């Protein structure tokens, strides 16, 4: 199984509007209703116009029909052939819309005609323009031959009845009503969609807040756990140091004093290592990669491992000779130690730990790599916990037993070194944790050996020490004095500048980085470089972010805590050669 850092996937994001901006602004339920109303009104107007047109057409048709009739009946009417006249008129019966048809002589007297049930013909008729009365249309036409008026024909035509007209408009009406309904439904659904959209966004926003609060509380909880674990460890270290000092005061036996000093130093070293680990987990500790031979380095850890793991755990290291990697050697050791410690804890009744390494061939796209695996035959890790074991502060150990930072350090180290971690675990059978890190070519830097106190004489050269912490200032002052330097302390950068303005009678400036006042260490170094360019300066800090920024500007740096040997060496490099 490969564990990769989980990239936080945003649960929510700014979701785009449902419609393009301008459209979205006007697409409100009100406008939808207006659109529907417009549709309805235009539909009605269309129907009315249509009705009027149909009526006018009907009038025209009836008038034409009357003209045709008038033209047909002219001779029968002129020569009183009422039989032929009646036949002409009866021909109109084929049209059920014609309710009555009559022929009148030149004086307007009724001559012949027919009517359908429910209507009648007037006795006398004079020509008139078409008249619509109720649902009846009445038209007349003059019967003429040449210039001679022969008579009048009279037609009464039924306009379409309401049911028939309604039937004719039913299709269109249905369409319009459907369209109105559609628009209305669209409007309503869009409105509800928008409401849902808004509430969804509110929901997302509130969820983000809750998540942020949850993260905050998790952080606090983790802080609590860390505080508990670290405080316990530190208390132990302090206990060693305090009791050691107490015992030193009560004894004059040089051998015992030496033993106690060694114990105190060991406790202080462990404390320094612990803070170093914390910084590494927080990935704030700069790595110092070196090309190392894996076999040499890990074989050198044998004793450390055996001492740390205790009785009952057998360590078997087997590593090929020519495996080089470029990593921070101390971090590698810590990582191996952390894995081994976890292995030990997984084997309460004892067992074995196998440390193996082998080279992995590379490809066109991938570098050659080295797999360093540490296997145990312990209880294994439950599958559901596999994804959590590298999380900071995750621990299955009781309070005070573990900080939950061990494997987190391993993860941080692997990632910082351009590698990965693989975990294989079978509950009840054991766990194998493998570091896969890029293989290096090149020559190893020989193992750094602590100089055997080759202290250089300071020759009473004066150093301006800028440090806000009294204890630290006193101790560093003591160390400088021990090395033969003269030191004068300033509490802040501002005070240091004031002192230098009085008289710049110093060979060097040694300053803390983070201090109260308007200037920090870097600012001070800049000012000094401008004002007194011949005065060398060195910074000291225990905070890795500050260290990184100082290093990026090329300012000499001492990382706290440092030993007197380190201090001596750095001072020698900076100002030793001059004199």
């Amino acid at each position, binding site marked *: 199984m490969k564990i990769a850092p989980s990239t936080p996937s945003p649960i929510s994001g700014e979701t785009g509007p449902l419609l393009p901006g301008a459209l979205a602004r006007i697409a409100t339920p009100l406008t939808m209703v207006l659109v529907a109303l417009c549709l309805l009104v235009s539909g009605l107007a269309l129907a009315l116009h249509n009705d009027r047109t149909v009526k006018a057409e009907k009038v025209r048709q009836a008038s034409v029909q009357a003209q045709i009739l008038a033209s*047909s009946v*002219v*001779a*029968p009417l*002129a*020569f*009183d*052939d*009422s*039989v*032929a006249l009646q*036949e*002409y008129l009866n*021909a109109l019966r084929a049209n059920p819309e014609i309710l009555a048809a009559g022929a009148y002589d030149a004086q307007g007297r009724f001559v012949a005609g027919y009517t359908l049930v429910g209507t009648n013909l007037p006795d006398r008729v004079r020509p008139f323009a078409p008249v619509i009365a109720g649902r009846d249309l009445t038209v007349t036409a003059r019967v*003429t*031959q*040449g*210039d*001679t008026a*022969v008579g009048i024909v009279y037609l009464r035509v039924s306009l379409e009845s309401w049911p028939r007209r309604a039937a004719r408009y039913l299709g269109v009406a249905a369409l319009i009503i459907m369209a109105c309904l559609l628009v209305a439904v669209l409007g309503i659904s869009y409105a509800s969609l928008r409401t849902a959209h808004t509430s969804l966004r509110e929901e997302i926003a509130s969820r983000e807040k809750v998540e942020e609060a949850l993260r905050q509380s998790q952080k606090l909880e983790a802080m609590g756990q860390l505080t508990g674990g670290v405080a316990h460890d530190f208390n132990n270290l302090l206990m060693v140091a305090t009791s050691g000092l107490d015992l030193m005061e009560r004894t004059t036996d040089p051998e015992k004093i030496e033993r106690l000093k060694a114990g105190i130093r060991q406790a202080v070293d462990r404390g320094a290592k612990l803070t170093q680990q914390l910084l590494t987990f927080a990935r704030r500790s700069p790595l110092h990669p070196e090309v190392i031979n894996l076999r040499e380095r890990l074989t050198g850890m044998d004793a450390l491992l055996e001492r740390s793991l205790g009785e009952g755990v057998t360590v078997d290291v087997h590593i090929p000779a020519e495996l080089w990697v470029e990593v921070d050697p101390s971090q590698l050791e810590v990582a191996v130690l952390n894995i081994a410690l976890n292995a030990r804890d997984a084997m309460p009744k004892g067992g074995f730990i196998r440390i193996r390494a082998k080279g992995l061939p590379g490809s066109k796209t991938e570098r050659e790599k080295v797999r360093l695996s540490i296997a145990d035959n312990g209880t294994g890790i439950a599958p559901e916990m596999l994804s959590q074991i590298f999380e900071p502060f995750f621990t299955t150990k009781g309070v005070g037993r573990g900080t939950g930072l061990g494997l987190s350090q391993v993860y941080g180290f692997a990632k910082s070194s351009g590698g990965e971690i693989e975990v294989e675990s079978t509950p009840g059978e054991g766990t194998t944790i493998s570091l896969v890190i890029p293989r290096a070519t090149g020559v190893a830097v020989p193992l750094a050996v602590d100089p055997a106190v080759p202290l250089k004489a300071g020759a009473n050269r004066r150093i301006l020490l800028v440090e806000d912490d009294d204890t630290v200032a006193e101790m560093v002052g003591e160390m400088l004095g021990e090395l033969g330097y003269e030191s004068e302390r300033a509490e802040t950068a501002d005070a240091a500048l004031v002192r230098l303005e009085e008289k710049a009678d110093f060979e060097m400036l040694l300053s803390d980085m983070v201090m109260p006042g308007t200037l920090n260490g870097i600012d001070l170094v800049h000012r000094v470089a401008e004002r007194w360019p011949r005065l060398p300066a060195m910074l000291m800090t225990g905070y890795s972010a500050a260290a990184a920024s100082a290093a990026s500007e090329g300012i000499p740096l001492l990382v706290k805590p440092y030993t007197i040997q380190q201090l001596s060496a750095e001072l020698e490099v900076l100002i030793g050669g001059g004199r």
Partner: protein
Amino acid sequence: MAYVARRSPKPGRLRWSGGGLVWAGAALATVLVGAPASASTPSLEQAVKASYLFKFAPFITWPDRALAGSKVFTICLSGDDPFGAVLDDVVRGQRIARLPIVVRRLGAATGGIAAGGAGRISCQMLFAGRGPQAGDYAPFADLDGQPVLTVTDAGAGPPGGMIRFVTQAGRIRFQIDDGAARANGLVISSKLLGLAVSVGRQ
């Protein structure tokens, strides 16, 4: 002459069988044929005929030359006048071809007068009534080719004439000799032809 009549099923569209004459089988106005009327008191029959005489005019188209230069439309009566004042009453105030109507009674004069000969009498329509007993009454003589509509009464008067009143089933009807009318340059409307008892075509 054989008359074959067939009614078209639709009025207004009378179909003519080839070369035959069609009976316009319409009963005419219910005018009972009464006793022969005297000149002084025209019967209802004569009144109808007088009315028809006027009503024929709109259905007839005269050639331009017939009316050229005329200020009046002249209806001439030759022989006995069966209508008396009735005809004058019918045409009073009426116009034919936009011309006021004048009724001229020619007596037993011959057709030459009616054709607008030396006597300068020009008729557009000539009704020939019963003539004198003497055999030389020929009202239509010299009218060949002249645009004069000639009307006769089958019951009384000379033979011939483009339109001839007949009595059928007690109703006054008419026969039309369309051939003669056309020969004289007159066009009779098919509407009128359709109403005729018989139409002669030559």
